[in-house]
């Protein structure tokens, strides 16, 4: 029975500081500490440990913040320089796709003409046309996939 009481007190010592305890538990705990020197000592040791932990001081390396700011400036500059390149890539991709659609009828005419001259089967011509038309779309898809992969890699850092 006594062991149970001390075990409960031990648990409350930590619980009070980690999760908090109810008023009823607090009253019981306070009464027990008045009667039990061992538990009171354990509570005091825990209090001391936390108090000293809170009071501990760590010295910062000199110029720590300045070095961080300097590196940030360099990185920000790099990012600013890279941003237009990425935008150009997307624009090229969009233009390529739009041109593919706009020129499709003319390209098909040209392929038909080649087919007439060479006698290639219609299936081959259609496949060639399809491939030609799909290339910009595939290129765009590849960029989208790569961008998604990049963002997925970043997702781990988002925290929530």
């Amino acid at each position: 029975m006594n062991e149970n009481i001390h075990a409960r007190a031990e648990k409350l010592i930590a619980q009070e500081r980690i999760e908090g305890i109810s008023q009823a538990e607090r009253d019981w705990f306070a009464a027990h500490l008045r009667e039990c020197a061992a538990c009171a000592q354990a509570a005091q040791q825990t209090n001391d440990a936390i108090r000293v932990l809170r009071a501990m001081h760590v010295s910062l390396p000199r110029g720590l913040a300045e070095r961080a700011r300097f590196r940030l400036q360099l990185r920000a500059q790099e990012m600013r320089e890279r941003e237009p390149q990425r935008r150009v890539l997307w624009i090229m991709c969009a233009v390529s796709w739009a041109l593919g659609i706009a020129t499709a009828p003319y390209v098909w005419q040209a392929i038909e003409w080649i087919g007439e001259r060479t006698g290639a089967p219609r299936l081959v011509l259609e496949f060639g046309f399809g491939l030609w038309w799909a290339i910009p779309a595939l290129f765009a898809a590849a960029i989208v996939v790569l961008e998604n992969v990049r963002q997925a890699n970043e997702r781990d850092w988002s925290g929530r």
Partner: protein
Amino acid sequence: MADDNKALAQGLKRRDPDLLDQLIEQYQYRLFRYLLYLTSSRERAEDFFQETWIRVLERGHQYDGKYKFESWLFRIARNLVIDWQRSKKMQSLDALLDPEEGTPVEFAAENQPSPLHQVLTAEEKIGVHSSLDRIPAVYREVLVLRFQEELGLEEIAGVLAAPLSTVKSRLYRGLEALRGAMQGSAA
């Protein structure tokens, strides 16, 4: 507070240099202290400190302002340390993530006093320093987040990307280990 966080999130999205300067100034002590306890090395802590702010710049758009900035900051720092640890393959990552199922990770070499120990004992001659240095890094981490950084249990769970139950369990064990280590020091 929520409005402040939203404004902070917008500033980070814009990569506002003044805001970043202010954040570095405001959080430098807490971030460095956290990294020092995590890595037990001043040099590594400083490297991770620089790298953490680079990540803040690069991925500031991911901070949505729903949670405290420091939780997000500590999480970035922690992920960097874990990535570094993974790349070095010095210890099992699983042990860091779930110490109850393996040997908890200690970053400092076991046979020599760690830089953390040296630095701290040089600064304050109090037994708790060496006691803290002796307890496993995963427990030390939650103790620091709870009692030095004053983060709530859910915020710590966010930093660790661990369930609340794991955070509580580590805190209970950590507190017990700290008290035990202090008693050992006193003896």
